[in-house]
């Protein structure tokens, strides 16, 4: 197979220092924020996302000493409302600048992680460009979505784990799970990753019970226990504290809504049509539970197969979680896109094939957007076509994941870092 051309190779010719790239990315995001202000004032279609208005209204309630859940559709942690109180006191753009900063922090952590894995500065910067100059995260953060905060926290967790700072990583992880529920799936690969080496590799014909017992004993190693305990403590402290302050509303909107969310409205997931048609049937609850099964099986399989490379494992986890979820919107793509620059050095795909896969990914979305537009803005009955497009998009995502997995080559020089 021809040697891969790393994505950022051509940047070597440019001789731009990493600080320069970061500076350009920051300026581009700031420019977008101010453009958003202009568009909000002049055009009828607003640039700012509806979510940002929800956050600001909730922050206003917080400044008045009331519950942020008084604002309808506020389904996030109260921490976000608290963090955005300067929106009310100082300037309404504060939140957007906070999200842009988290975006840049994400990129910085990517850069440090890539350096830590042994890449050169230029190459690391080249891979970071995928996140820094990518229009999708730029637009998402400047529009006022809070996804970059969770991305930054997840990357902080991975970075701290790579540097063997288990307790700090656990705090960051607990905070990330509190803000968005999806990182909870990482607990299995993290636990497997923190396990000490097997003292006696591969005893054949070992009874299953003995192996299970040994596995559980290893699971109770110091690192794993420390991580689980600290993360659990962080999460419980936050939840308990907010429950004391805001009561049942907090639990309902922050956690339960996301767990039991059954969105029958059209979205990328092909499950939506089944949920819509069976919404009132007695089978709907069991069907909803059954939809968890493919996710669960695949996630477990991937965890056990790839836990040694935590970053790759987490990337696959998130990609599978988003692809097979009952609800899938374009916001969710950021969750695994932020881990893609870390995975790219390890996945040896010819750049032509990579471009083809990328095009297929965009075509899959376009094929879904067309009937969805006809339904929502022209009132045509295109439910079946939306469902088929969702199914096709699922197939495309699966084929991309299969390609990534099959071309993945673990770094030969990567050592298993032992945790004491």
């Amino acid at each position: 197979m021809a040697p891969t051309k790393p994505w950022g190779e051509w940047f070597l010719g440019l001789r731009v220092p990493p600080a320069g790239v970061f500076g350009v990315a920051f300026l581009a995001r700031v420019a977008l924020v101010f453009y958003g202000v202009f568009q909000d004032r002049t055009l009828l279609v607003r640039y700012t996302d509806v979510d940002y208005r929800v956050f600001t209204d909730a922050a206003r309630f917080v400044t008045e000493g009331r519950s942020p859940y008084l604002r309808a559709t506020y389904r996030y942690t109260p921490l976000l409302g608290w963090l955005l109180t300067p929106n009310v006191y100082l300037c309404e753009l504060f939140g957007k600048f906070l999200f842009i900063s988290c975006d840049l922090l994400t990129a910085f952590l990517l850069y440090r992680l890539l350096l830590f894995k042994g890449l050169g500065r230029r190459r690391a910067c080249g891979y970071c460009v995928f996140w820094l100059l990518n229009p999708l995260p730029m637009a998402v953060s400047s529009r006022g979505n809070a996804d970059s905060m969770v991305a930054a926290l997840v990357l902080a967790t991975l970075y701290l784990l790579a540097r063997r700072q288990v307790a700090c990583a656990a705090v960051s992880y607990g905070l990330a799970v509190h803000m968005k529920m999806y990182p909870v799936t990482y607990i299995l690969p993290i636990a497997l990753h923190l396990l000490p080496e097997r003292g006696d590799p591969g005893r054949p014909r070992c009874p299953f019970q003995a192996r299970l017992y040994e596995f559980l004993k290893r699971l109770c190693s110091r690192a794993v226990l420390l991580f689980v305990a600290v993360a659990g403590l962080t999460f419980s402290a936050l939840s308990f504290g907010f429950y004391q302050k805001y009561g049942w509303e907090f639990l309902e909107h922050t956690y339960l809504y996301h767990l039991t969310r059954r969105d029958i409205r059209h979205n990328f997931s092909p499950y939506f049509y089944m949920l819509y048609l069976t919404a009132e049937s007695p089978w709907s609850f069991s069907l909803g539970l059954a939809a968890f099964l493919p996710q669960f099986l695949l996630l477990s399989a991937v965890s056990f197969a790839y836990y040694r490379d935590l970053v790759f494992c987490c990337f696959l986890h998130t990609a599978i979680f988003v692809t097979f979820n009952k609800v899938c919107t374009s916001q969710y793509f950021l969750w695994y896109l932020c881990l893609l620059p870390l995975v790219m050095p390890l996945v040896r795909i010819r750049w032509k094939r990579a471009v083809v896969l990328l095009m297929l990914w965009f075509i899959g979305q376009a094929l879904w957007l067309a009937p969805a537009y006809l339904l929502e803005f022209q009132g045509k009955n295109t439910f079946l076509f939306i469902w088929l497009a969702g199914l096709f998009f699922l197939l495309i995502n699966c084929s991309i994941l299969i390609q990534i997995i099959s071309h993945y080559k673990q770094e030969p020089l990567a050592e298993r870092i032992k945790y004491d």
Partner: protein
Amino acid sequence: DLAHVTAPAPLFAPPPTRRRGAGRRRSEPGGLCCSLPRRRNFRGSTAAGSRGTAGPQARVTESSVPVTNSVAALSRSGVRRAQAPPSARSSVFTRSARAPLGSAFSSVLAARAVGVRAVAWLLLWEVAGFTSIPATAFSAAPTDTGIRATCSEIILRQEVLKDGFHRDLLIKVKFGESLEDLQTCRLLIKQYIPSGLFVDPYELASLRERNITEAVMVSENFNIEAPNYLSKESEVLIYARQDSQCIDCFQAFLPVHYRYHRPHSKDGETVIVVNNPDLLMYCDQEFPILKCWAQSEVAAPCALKSKDICQWNNMKYKPVYKNVTLQVPVGLTIHTSLGSAFRTSIFRNRSQ
């Protein structure tokens, strides 16, 4: 033709009185015409006294004028005269112009005047029996017919713009007659939103900020994301604005959105029905149009940003359409068994 109105004065007085009356007629065009005498009699009896006739004569003149007016109102032949002061005015001019032309005219007039006067006296007895007739009846008698004739309908038209799940409801109200007084009136539309639609109150707040429309939701505790069968009707108050393109028109605008509806077994579409709204009107003064069409009173805020409650009048109007029906695409339950449904839907789409 005005003889029976002006006759009593000349009959009591010698011709010079009439000439005096004629002169006065010339100097005060329409001074003795139908409309002015009526007013003089009810707003100031001194006006009749200024004519210079004797007391009892004046009183007779005063009382006979309303009698003859009521007679005119009651008898069909008099209606025309009572209603048409301008023509009476012109006939006064012609009378005053023709009077010097020949005495024949005056004798004919005198004979007619006697007959009519007799009838008037007879009827005066009848009318005296009706002691409870209020003064307003006299003034209202000709004006009632005036209102019934000039009280045109209020026309309301409901339209839905745009396509798809996000629509704009446009309500246009047109008043049949051109009245400058409408500038001081305010119109409030109380729209009932069926459970198949929803209105986003935050969107309304943003439209209020941008001064595009003034609408506010009355109902509380709604769920924007719920489907149709888990939702309830809601109410929205829209403060209508004057339409710049049409005189005496008001319009109101409201963005609405579809909810998801139950899937259907055969049809790919179901229907939402939007009924005609309540039209509420508030004017600073009493206008005839309010008297015509007001059915009941409703308490609502006077303006969007004020907390004062006004008593609005619920007006009866004529709607252009009985109601507005909207088509909503829904899923087909036959798709639930996806295998066979896949084939059937392809054939259905081909046949359409």
